């Protein structure tokens, strides 16, 4: 069937690609928001890899496979917390900078 026909390696390769894209994004982008989005991309690449591996391990036992999926959940929560904190810092910066232009978000440089 459809699910079984795609080998795990393909998913992992895709996730590696996404991860690399994210990493490149972090290293090349200058705007804080874009860097941040790139990091999110990397996290999601990791999630994809985890899910793919979990599916691959499903044959070895439910517990092993489930632990991978649970990890995805935890990582999602971690990512959410990061988003909240990151946005919080950004908002705090802009609140004090009295800037009225949203594009100024890109003014935060690394």
């Amino acid at each position, binding site marked *: 069937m459809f699910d079984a026909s795609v080998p*795990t390696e393909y998913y*992992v390769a895709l*996730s590696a690609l996404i*991860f690399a894209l*994210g*990493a490149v994004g*972090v290293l090349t982008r200058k705007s*804080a928001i874009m*860097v*941040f989005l790139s*990091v999110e991309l*990397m*996290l999601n*690449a*990791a*999630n994809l*890899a*985890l899910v*793919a*591996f*979990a599916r*691959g*391990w499903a044959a*070895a036992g439910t517990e*092993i496979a489930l*632990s*991978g999926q*649970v*990890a995805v959940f*935890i*990582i999602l929560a*971690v990512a959410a*917390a*990061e988003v909240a*904190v*990151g946005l*919080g*810092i*950004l908002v*705090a*910066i802009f*609140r*004090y900078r009295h800037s009225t232009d949203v594009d100024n978000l890109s003014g*935060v*440089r*690394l």
Partner: protein
Amino acid sequence: MIDINWLTLAPPLALLVTACIGIVFGIGFRSTRPTALLSLVGVGVAFLFTVLLLGRSGAGETLSSFGLRYLADQAALTFNVVILLGTALTLFMSYTYLGRARLEHAEFYPLVLLSATGAMVMAAAGDFITLLLGLEILSLAVYVLSAWRQGVRESEEAGMKYFLLGAFASAFLIYGIALMYGATGHFTYAGVVALLSAEGFDQPLLAALGGVFILAGLAFKAAFAPFHQWAPDVYTGAPTPVTAFMSVVVKAAAFAALLRVFATVFPALGAVVPVIFAVLVGLTMVIGNLSALVQRSVKRMLAYSAVAHAGYLGLAVLAAGQGANSGAQAVVWYLLAYTLMNAGALAVMTLITDPNDHGDDLERLAGLGRTRPYLAALMAVFMLSLAGIPPLAGFVGKVLVFQAAIQAGYLELAVLGIVTSIVAVVYYFRVVGAMYFREAEYEPQRARSQMTNVALGVAALGTVLLGLLPGWWYGWLSVGGPLLAGF
């Protein structure tokens, strides 16, 4: 059913509960001082629990929770002591500082405690996911703390930079964990090691790659050389007590995690990870010390010196990775010493800089030996100890580290470490020189604080006592037993 041993979780839980109480009731008060005192109580309770557990663990009891995912073994508990010490010093330092610097927001202390909670979880992690959770609890709070000085460009940029790079690093860590899971199907160290060393393990490359990624993620937190760029800016931009917290507690947690992973999982991965790490360590020692050499700002110099010390700690971790138990002990010892002397140095800085942390140039310290003799004397002690001059704590730390490294066969790195610490003597001594050998050019800050004095006293006493009577503490802090429970 999941096995939960509440007693093993008690130290971090004590901090967590205190943080929760603080954050809910703290915003009712105008001053943050009640929260600070509450936090100190929380740290004290956590410390008592840690001591209790240490006693039990010393009696040979295996303490863990969640099926070896949370280990309260000797190593974790000794790291807890270091973490709690660093946290307490930070609290003492912040007590008056926050009001002086107009940074009094109720959330400060709860965030510090939360961060310390994360650090303890990291130290106790027996599982990559626990490690990740600890790391995030730790980091998220510190991101906010480093941007605490709102409306000041340096602090905001410090927070933003730390956050973005930190998130980047955790992405690496997470991806590494994913790869490791892909190779072995486990998250617990015990499970991973069991599979890695099992017959017919067919994914060594994937596992090694995962190891490298995990290493990169942790190396960032520990500020190893190519990943250290955030450190100077963040350390300079953050309020000084936060800098102290970062350089002490965050570092302790990072090395606790690194040590455990290094001593358990990495040896099973083959030679490549230790080799990469050895290169990182060498780079860190060189770059950290050379960069510190050219700084004029003391805080910035301390930031680079923190990088350099990460190198020495890394050397001990490397030794521990080779199975030398003395390496693990050297890590704990060095961290304890570093906690005392670096927190002490930064505590001095809080008293001699402006309320907004400016004025930490070397020139500003000129003549301090005359204008504020006691403070200068303490600073001199901390500087000399950081430089590794006997008979202070830093020296014993260095001896233990180099000794362990040489024993584990890293003679070249040990020589490099000693050569770089010669360089280090110059920049630390420059501070001493400025304080004593030069005339004052500026009116010194007259900030005083009883609570900071407590921190200073503890730090100085510890620095001296650790140096003079290391044997007393060494036995007590010894990381007895294997680092990997379940074997």
